[in-house]
């Protein structure tokens, strides 16, 4: 573990505050561009209300959406096992201080202890590297979009067309429920668990970053155009902005499998990262790894 300039707990509180109160710049730009090309009155009302809300939330330092989600953490670089307890403390404090809505409950009894923690929480993904930094990223994931997650174990014979069809149908069948215009995270390949993990990780990539894989970049563009030609529109009330972006990741899979997962991010796809090194803490709102 590198020497930290301030406690991880404090950094986690800062990250949750930043993610919940300030929309990443790339998402804001995509919304503004959408407002420019939308023509329908209802769609324009929705986009106007969204942008008005984003400005007010940032100005007032309040969470832009009441569903502050379940914070999903990604820890990359150098770290040790003490980071779990520190992230947990940060989540509990942020829940009280920002405040965040206490969302976590026992799945069966539905009991809520108000802490946003509990069995199996917080969700942390670990990516150890030899870099001289510790990077903590948070993706607060609301249930409206998370509940629309889909995984299909397609047959290899379904091919690229089957993958494309599944992505498009997943987004259109979700309708207005995940708060479109949404960001579509897609995983192709891997095992079932890896596939869903990739779909969510894809939501961390800034919208203006290019997919290094030209085949995936082309598929992202194709699905983006198809979805925005669908007419579903903001909040599913009709219009030409159904998605703000499509991000696809892939991994090798079994020769008998073709897994595809779709994890939708709402228009308020919130993210924040802190890169901690000897030089201090640097905050940003989108990472590619």
């Amino acid at each position, binding site marked *: 573990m590198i020497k930290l300039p301030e406690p991880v707990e404090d950094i986690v509180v800062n990250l949750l505050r930043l993610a919940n109160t300030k929309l990443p710049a790339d998402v804001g730009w995509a919304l503004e561009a959408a407002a420019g090309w939308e023509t329908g009155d209802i769609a324009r009302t929705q986009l106007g209300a969204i942008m008005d*809300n984003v400005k007010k*939330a940032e100005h007032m330092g309040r969470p832009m959406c009441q569903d502050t989600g379940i914070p999903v953490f990604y820890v990359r670089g150098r770290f040790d096992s003490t980071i779990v307890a520190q992230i947990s403390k940060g989540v509990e404090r942020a829940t009280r201080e920002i405040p965040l809505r206490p969302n976590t409950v026992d799945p069966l009894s539905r009991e809520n202890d108000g802490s946003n923690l509990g069995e199996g929480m917080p969700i942390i993904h670990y990516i150890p590297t030899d870099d001289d930094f510790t990077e903590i990223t948070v993706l607060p994931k609301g249930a409206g979009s998370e509940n629309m997650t889909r995984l299909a174990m397609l047959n290899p014979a379904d091919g690229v067309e089957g993958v494309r069809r599944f992505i498009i149908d997943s987004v259109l069948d979700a309708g207005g429920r995940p*708060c479109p215009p949404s960001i579509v995270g897609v995983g192709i390949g891997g095992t079932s668990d890896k596939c869903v993990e990739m779909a969510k990780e894809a939501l961390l990539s800034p919208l203006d970053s290019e997919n290094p894989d030209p085949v995936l970049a082309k598929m992202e563009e194709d699905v983006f155009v198809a979805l925005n030609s669908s007419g*579903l529109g903001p909040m599913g009330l009709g219009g030409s902005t159904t998605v703000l972006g499509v991000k696809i990741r892939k991994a090798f899979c079994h020769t008998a499998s073709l897994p595809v997962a779709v994890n939708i991010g709402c*228009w308020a796809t919130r993210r924040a990262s802190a890169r901690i090194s000897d030089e201090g803490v640097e905050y940003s709102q989108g990472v590619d790894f």
Partner: protein
Amino acid sequence: MKLGETVYVFGPVITGRDEMHIRAIERSVAGEDVPSDIEGAVLFHCGPIMVQREDGTWAVVAAGPTTSARMNKLEPEMIRRFGIRAIIGKGGMSKDVAEAMREVGCVYLAATGGAAISLAEGLSRCTGVEWLDLGMAEAMWRFETERFGPLIVAMDAEGNSLYEQVASSIVRI
């Protein structure tokens, strides 16, 4: 109210999500007391972020709509049993709900999902809370409203739905 029209709400509103629906219906079926303001209510599908002031009263921090479709199975009985007059939510509701709305004379008003700060400005005062044991999100909150919106009339009292219209004209290429 016409489909597609933009409206604002003034007056009392209550919130309710899955757990509030379940409890209200269960208690009513069992002949137990339920808060009287559920009767004929404007029901907002919302789990707000609230903070309690030192004097015990509550202030709203953020309050946008939740996904209404989660309540599809519960809402027809809720509407018929309590004569709900308007539902505020996002994403729309099923044909069964539209049928109950038509019978009772209830409309569905779509709020912009995630616009929790702007919408909270229209909730001028929190006038109380019931069933807080269900948790902050699932409790039944009472609000006075002042120009709460903008809301789109997305399902009218005649069984028409803007979501159905959009869904039937979706292009799947």
